[in-house]
């Protein structure tokens, strides 16, 4: 196959980044989605809007703000330096943070929709059977929300694989650390290495098609996202 060691490195890195970001997003996203689905607070609206922001904002905006806040003069940068962690731009953890923000709505919204679709009834029944709220969540809510979680995981993963602008602004193009597939393709195209660009780009097209095919096979009972 026409892939170099650097290309394989980029593929591995991309898969690591997408997996880690998706797992983190499912963990962080669940309580947020639950609150958004169940709360009657007025704050639900602004929080939902913030969650959806990455859908609308160009990745350059996210990349720019992250670079500034994670830089040595930014609040996050000062925090990580005070904790002895150094600075996050140009590092893999920095990219993970960027991806979590960038892919957030793609994970939270399907989970939130799934929670809302459950409604009050199963929760009330569980409560009359003396299930604790936590018990109810794990034995009733999670199984019922399974399709939502699948959609969320697939979308979060795929969207992170497709990330480009944020990484371009934040990554520094370092082999095996921040040079993901989309950046590697960009490098190949810029250097007029069209053959290698074709290989990687072709792989991504097939990957994206398979992901969407899976998604539509899963979600033919309802809409995939709002």
């Amino acid at each position, binding site marked *: 196959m026409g892939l170099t060691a650097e290309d394989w490195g980029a593929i591995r890195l991309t898969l690591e980044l997408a997996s880690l970001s998706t797992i983190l997003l499912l963990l962080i996203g669940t309580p947020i989605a639950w609150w958004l689905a169940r709360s009657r607070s007025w704050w639900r609206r602004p929080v939902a809007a913030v969650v959806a922001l990455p859908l609308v904002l160009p990745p350059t905006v996210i990349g720019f703000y992250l*670079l500034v806040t994670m830089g040595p003069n930014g609040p996050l940068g000062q925090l990580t330096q005070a904790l002895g962690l150094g600075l996050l731009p140009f590092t893999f953890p920095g990219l993970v943070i960027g991806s979590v923000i960038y892919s957030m709505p793609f994970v939270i919204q399907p989970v939130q929709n799934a929670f809302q679709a459950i409604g009050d009834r199963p929760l009330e029944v569980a409560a009359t059977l003396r299930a604790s709220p936590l018990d109810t969540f794990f034995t009733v809510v999670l199984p019922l929300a399974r399709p939502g979680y699948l959609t969320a995981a697939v979308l979060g993963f795929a969207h992170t694989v497709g990330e480009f602008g944020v990484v371009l602004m934040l990554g520094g193009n370092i082999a095996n650390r921040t040079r993901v597939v989309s950046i590697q393709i960009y490098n190949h195209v810029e250097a007029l290495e069209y053959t290698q660009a074709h290989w990687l780009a072709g792989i991504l097209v097939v990957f994206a098609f398979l992901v969407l095919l899976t998604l539509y096979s899963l979600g033919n009972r309802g809409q995939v996202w709002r």
Partner: protein
Amino acid sequence: MKPIIKLSLAFALIAAAVGARADEVQVAVAANFTAPMKEIAEAFAKATNHKVVAAFGSTGKFYSQIQNGAPFEVLLAADAETPAKLEKEGSAVAGSRFTYAIGKLVLWSAKPDFVDQKGKVLKQGKFEHLSIANPKLAPYGAAGVEAMKKLEVFGALEPKLVQADNIAQAFQFVQSGNAELGFIALSQVYKEGKVADGSAWIVPAKLYSPILQDAVILAKGKDKPAAIALLDFLKGEKARAIITSYGYGL
């Protein structure tokens, strides 16, 4: 008004608009030349009434864009090879090439006293990130790599390199403090005869091959008065004064 008159009026307006646009010249400008180009464009507009519409980026990117039909009429490259290659391939007007500036490489940090006058900081290596423009695409990036190799520090520093898409981003990485230092173009930090802020080491010319920056009229700018006027203007007194004020050689 009769419809036919309305229509011809509309056409006349469009023709007038197109006519006014003919005085524009689309220029692809190497990122390191951004600041001087803005000043030159202003002086050029005053002197000739032609308007410069500039795009700033890496020379390598412009090369592939021009090959693929980008609408640029003039290229101000960061090297001599790209214009020569374009001329050979027939994408540039033969005989229009000339060196408009000689670039100088500088090792720069936003922090005062971080970079010493002899560049020892490279050997000590007490930093996390050294920013550089992608050496495959940007001549200043290639010059930086060449200088590090001559100083025999490239092997040690390679893991610390962060590659920017072009020299403007390389500068931005350093200026925002995310990289402690970086190889950039002197023109990016040079104002009124000195390095404006931070600390810098102007890399001695013997450590890298001269960065001859050539300009050329592209096939799309052939016989366009505004394109020819811009190249003439670049050769003139006024433009040369601006170019040297940013630390370029000539």
